């Protein structure tokens, strides 16, 4: 079943590539494929009974201990569901029209297979295959359908993240060679961590893996590829990049680095916490200074991902309270899901601005609330959700992270992180004031109301964020056991 969920979009992409379907029909095939995939994910969720569910394990390179091993648990299932939903809504969003729709749809379907594959993989090589292909897919999205200086941004994105992924590959090779017997299988590696005899050699491997994922996350100072890539990508591409691809970095840290290198993770927990705090403060401060709406949202992603790195770092504080550390990890996973929904919505909304006015500069807009009340309402809700207002997913996640981090003993880091939330609030209020309130700007006249396709794409994301914010139990009950298991693994 999980294999079908992973490869169904790819099969649909092949179908699109082979059959000469017209533009509009291609989009409908895309929507149908993603909708079926989402239904299958929902069925998987309902059929999930704890532990590793829907597991498939086939041998591929037996001598290297590598295989086709996929499965879901409380951490990957919500992310897979979020991915499937976001891709469906990107397809709906593209109903409003796009250039060369057939190849666009095929490329996004390919990206969907790759993204779900990353979250489902339980084998390092399989994980890497999907991880690396996500870069290739996103490169073509940016270079083919982006705007502005897209060739340059796409190349920066490719080279930067590709370097990160190869450093990651070196780390994986290190894990492989450090394990006895040599294996790439993640469950085996987690059950029997490598380098148990020689903790000294675990440090370079952790550095390689951390740097590899940090580029993707991204973490300051390895974030410089992100603003240009986001700014020049098409709206749906940005939504997928921020909503799904960035999660691969933090997911990889939680899924691979934490359980396989527990001793090294404990030793460097404070370094990771510091990196997380710097990242979230720097991201927030730089976002505050942005005049370009899309760059601003891109930097808030750096900020939001910083909380996750902070929480995962706090999970390694063995001296701290176990319950608090579990709380932090639960918050981190919730943040991954919530950020995917809210930032996806925000980027799709910036696409509306580009579509109408071909500009992102804040000071060229103003008073939009008068011509486009629904657009204003959607953006306001998304902005409040993003800054962590109670009632939205961001609040649940950030509250758990802060409570967990402070509870685990990192009081100063927690206090600084609160400061980050404050700055985010300020910057979103500044955006709302400049763009939607006040007198009209030079481009305000061009911004018309959202179209039905745009509304249908954005509203479900915000609604889901609201549901998680008000009634989070169904999600947290799924995440809690795996957070506890993760903390137990890292405490060895």
């Amino acid at each position: 079943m999980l294999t079908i969920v992973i490869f169904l979009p790819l099969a649909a992409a092949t179908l699109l590539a082979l059959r000469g379907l017209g533009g509009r029909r291609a989009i409908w095939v895309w929507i149908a494929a993603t909708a079926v995939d989402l239904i299958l994910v929902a069925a998987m969720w309902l059929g999930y009974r704890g532990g590793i569910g829907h597991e498939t394990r086939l041998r591929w390179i037996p001598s290297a201990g590598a295989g086709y091993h996929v499965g879901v648990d409380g951490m990957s299932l919500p992310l897979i569901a979020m991915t499937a939903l976001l891709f469906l809504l990107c397809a709906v969003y593209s109903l409003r029209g796009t250039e060369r729709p057939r190849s666009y749809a095929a490329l996004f379907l390919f990206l969907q297979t790759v993204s779900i594959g990353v979250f489902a993989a339980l084998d390092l090589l399989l994980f890497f295959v999907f991880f690396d292909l996500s870069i290739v897919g996103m490169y073509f999205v940016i270079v083919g359908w982006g705007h502005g200086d897209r060739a340059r941004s796409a190349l920066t994105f490719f080279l930067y993240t590709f370097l990160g992924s190869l450093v990651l590959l070196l780390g994986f090779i290190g894990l492989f060679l450090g394990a006895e017997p040599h294996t790439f299988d993640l469950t085996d590696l987690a059950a029997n961590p490598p380098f148990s005899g020689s903790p000294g050699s675990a440090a370079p491997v952790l550095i390689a893996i951390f740097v590899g994922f940090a580029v993707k996350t991204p973490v300051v100072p390895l974030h410089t590829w992100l603003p240009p890539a986001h700014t020049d990508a098409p709206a749906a591409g940005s939504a997928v990049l921020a909503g799904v691809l960035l999660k691969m970095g933090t997911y990889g840290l939680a899924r691979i680095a934490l359980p396989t290198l527990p001793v090294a993770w404990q030793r460097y927990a404070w370094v990771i916490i510091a990196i997380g705090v710097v990242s979230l403060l720097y991201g927030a401060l730089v976002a505050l200074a942005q005049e370009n709406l899309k760059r601003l949202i891109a930097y808030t992603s750096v900020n939001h991902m910083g909380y996750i790195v902070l929480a995962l770092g706090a999970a390694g504080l063995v001296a701290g309270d176990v319950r608090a550390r579990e709380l932090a990890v639960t918050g981190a996973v919730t943040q991954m899901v919530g950020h995917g929904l809210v930032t996806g919505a925000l980027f799709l909304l910036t696409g509306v601005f580009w579509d109408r006015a071909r500009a992102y500069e804040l000071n060229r807009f103003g008073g939009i609330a008068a011509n486009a009340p629904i657009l204003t309402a959607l953006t306001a809700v998304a902005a409040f959700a993003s800054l962590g207002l109670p009632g939205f997913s961001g609040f649940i996640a950030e509250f758990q992270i802060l409570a967990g981090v402070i509870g685990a003993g990192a009081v100063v880091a927690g206090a600084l992180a609160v400061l980050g939330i404050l700055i985010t609030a300020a910057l979103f209020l500044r955006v709302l004031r400049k763009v939607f309130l006040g007198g009209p700007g030079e481009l305000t006249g061009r911004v018309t109301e959202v179209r039905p396709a745009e509304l249908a794409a954005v509203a479900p994301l915000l609604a889901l964020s609201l549901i998680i914010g008000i009634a989070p139990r169904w999600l947290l009950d799924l995440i809690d056991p795996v957070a506890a298991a993760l903390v137990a693994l890292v405490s060895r």
Partner: protein
Amino acid sequence: MNEDPSALLPELLMLGGAVIGLLTGAFTRRDRQRAVAWICGTALTGAAVATAFAAVRPDTMAFEAYAVDPLTNVTRVTVAVATLLVVVLAAGWARGNRREAEVYVLLLLAALGAVVLAGAGDLLVFAAAYLVASIPAYALAGFAEDGRGTEAALKYYLMGAFLGVIMLAGVTLLYGLKGTTSYMSLAGAPGAAAGCGILLLLAGVLFKAGAVPGHFWVPDVTEGAPPVVAAFVTTVPKIGALAGLLRLATEMFDGADAGWRPLVALIAVATMTLGNLAAFHQDNVRRLLAYSTISQAGYLLIPVAVTGQTGLARPALLFYLAAYAVTNLGAFAVVVAVGRDSLAGYAGLARRAPGLALALVVCLLGLVGTPPTAVFAGKLLVFAAAVDGGYAWLAVVAVLNTVASVFYYLRWIVPAFRPGEPPAPAPVATRVACLAATASLLLGVAAALMLTRG
């Protein structure tokens, strides 16, 4: 002592195919010389099949000078399949040429030389194989009889003769030291003289592999010679030379002074870095591919540097060689199919021939080492071998070079998706390109089969 000629059946089949092909070509009308292509193709297929049977038998040393083991067997198959692809490509290009038959025969002879380079267990056999692999290639490089082809052939020949003489000097020196030319008996030859002999020997090998400092011929030949010949000389001799070098290193160098390891590692670094840097601003796709093959030779030298220190070295080299051969031939097949040399000439390819454009993307990203193509599995093994063999820094350098290489491969991919009007692609070459791209993907997925045998 094993003196059973059937152990050499694949080599004999290739030799027999070349001889029969030559005779048939001499007595056949010009418009029927296509028959020679079929003869050569059959001989290559036969050699590959015979190897499959040989692979299940135990390892042996034929005539005390020729090893029949997995290293030889994998080289036999890889060379046979790669040459077969080139013969198919050449059949489209050489059709109607008055010396059509000679093309196939020369390809087959050069391929035979490449196989023997890998199997040789004696320096004299190695030197003979060097000549068999080189001389037909010189003739092929100048085959078009135009100014650039002649220049390419002359450069190729002079470089090959010069480095070949240096290599022979090395053989002489080693023979003088121990009174033998067998690898096994030469193992552990002590002292500076032996080190000097090894150094001289490397000159010839690096020429065939197209690695620094024997790489100067590569761009000129690739640009000047007909594209099919360029595809051949940058692929098949490299397979033989690197497999042969691995055998030399494993069986002969290993006992000697340990200084050769850092030397090979440094050559690897120089080769991959120089190849990549020089490829950066090429606007001619053939020169770009030429420098790319140089950088690939650099990655391929990594397992040689760590052989004997890790069990991964041999599977890594062999798998990478097979993957490289298929992928590189695919990229050249695209060049043959489109028939344009400038990067700008590929504009509009995606619209005109989507299949061919996809093959180009797969092959070029394959050369980068993007999963799930075959070169990814090869690179993975090479990196693992380097880390396991104590040369982690070499893996880091290779990673940096890989990232740098993305830049120039993308410079070729991007124009293919821009609007433009390329000529109609040649049908045979298009099929070869698609076949090679598919094979590159399948080989990546089916890595298991190769590895369990290696």
